[in-house]
């Protein structure tokens, strides 16, 4: 059975905007999946529906045999890590605390009140920081770090949740090319070595082809492509982004010229 399955998922915002239309999807455990599509296609909404930050309005999402509903979403979130475009760290707390935040779901309000964590949590956080290679920054304040480093803290927070699934919502859209590649390599390594399923929203087709096991593409809230990186030809890309073949290659040249 598939690890994640989405059945007839719809998302309509209160203002009537329909962000996801009838999405049916099965995802196997341990895969690295890239989600492509133009801005506003519903990529973020899809990821945010999977941990109920933006719950789907219709349809069913099942993760590891548990169907998301209003009552159990916190339990599901506890083992689903999320990595954000803007990192979403608590700037004024140090890196260690930001990573320990990934353990909060396991604790009662009383121990949280005094900012106390058990020793095992520190070991988990230390391992997560070692994984993202930021042990030396453990006691620095989060806002003193560079963008790439902050995103690695975001990944460490997700790792501290000891997740089976990591959702990364455009994790490299605010980073420079060098940090972007580092972050994607890190996510790929986590997927391959720990067998954690990783779903990444991306804008760059090239990165998707380089890192992903499987590529999914959305346009205007509908699933328009689902296949292996090899199957994503130039013609298919043009279809996804709603441009002609010539324009795409022209854009690609322009992009190359400016990077």
């Amino acid at each position, binding site marked *: 059975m598939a690890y994640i399955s989405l059945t007839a998922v719809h998302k309509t915002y209160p203002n009537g905007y329909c962000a996801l239309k009838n999405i049916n999807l099965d995802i196997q455990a341990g895969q690295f999946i890239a989600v492509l599509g133009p801005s506003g296609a519903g990529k973020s909404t899809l990821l945010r529906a999977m941990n109920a930050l933006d719950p789907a309005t219709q349809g069913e999402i099942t993760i590891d045999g548990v169907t998301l509903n209003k009552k159990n979403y916190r339990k599901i979130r506890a083992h689903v890590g999320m990595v954000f475009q803007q990192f979403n760290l608590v700037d004024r707390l140090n890196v260690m605390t930001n990573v320990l935040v990934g353990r909060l779901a396991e604790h009662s309000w009383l121990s949280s009140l005094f900012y106390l964590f058990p020793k095992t949590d520190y070991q988990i956080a*230390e391992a997560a*920081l*070692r994984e993202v*290679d930021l*042990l*030396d920054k*453990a*006691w620095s304040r989060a806002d003193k770090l560079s963008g790439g480093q902050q995103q690695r803290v975001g990944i460490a927070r997700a790792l501290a949740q000891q997740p089976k699934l990591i959702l990364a919502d455009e994790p490299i859209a605010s980073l420079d090319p060098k940090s972007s590649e580092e972050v994607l390599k890190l996510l790929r390594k986590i997927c391959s070595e720990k067998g954690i399923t990783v779903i990444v929203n991306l804008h760059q087709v090239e990165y998707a082809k380089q890192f992903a096991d499987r590529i999914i593409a959305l346009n205007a809230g509908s699933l328009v492509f689902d296949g292996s990186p090899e199957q994503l030809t130039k013609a298919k890309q043009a279809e996804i982004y709603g441009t002609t073949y010539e324009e795409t290659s022209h854009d690609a040249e322009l992009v190359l010229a400016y990077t």
Partner: protein
Amino acid sequence: MSIKTLPSRPHNLFPLWLSLALALLWLIIWDLDVAFQDLVYGIADMGEYLSRYGAPNLSNMSSYLHLMIQTLVTAFWGTTLAFIMAATIAPYAARQLTPNPFIYRIARELLNFMRAMPDLLLALIFVSSMGLGPLPGVLALAVHTAGFLGKFFAENMERVPAGKYEALSAVGAGFTQKIVFAAWPSMLRESVGNVLYIFDRNVRMAAVLGLVGAGGIGLELHDALRLFKYNQASALIIIILLTIIVIDNLSSWIRKVLN
């Protein structure tokens, strides 16, 4: 550069500061000899005491309303005079506008001095030199809050982007012209907010100026409480409370409209 071990945790001085603060508070409680336990015992009595305010005596309503209007007028005059004084002094106390550093220092110190003198002390002084009545109250409020407004205006003027002043200097504008054409148009909105804040404050203050014989509703309340006329006191408190709430809502409405 990457390291493989967690650096040792830096010393956290927060517990030390917290215990020092608590020790200081304990020392203060001991020195002031305040008995909070009396307060706990007294809560039952407090209920009985507060019940004496239960039946507001509204028979003197028209004279109370007259006093409340006098209070509002005192606050209005005080605020207007403060505005005039503050607007005159502020440009000299703004770094970019002041003619020379010496005048800047003097203007700042003058504003500081006006702010530091409590308005009740000023009211006492004015009452003893010009007799009882609302006029000394107006002057006391004017002098004290001109210090505040002047500081706010000067800070607003310093926050105006330097380019605006430079542009006017470039066309050969003088001191007054810079104030009229660069400073005020750029800081109008914040300054209106400051004036409203000061007016709110002055209404509250005018309500108690009567305690030193400077007009308004305060003296009436003082006398009512001194003669244990709780029903009159409660009527007065209700009038003051309602007026202040109305004024507060009015000024936050104006602030909202301006934004």
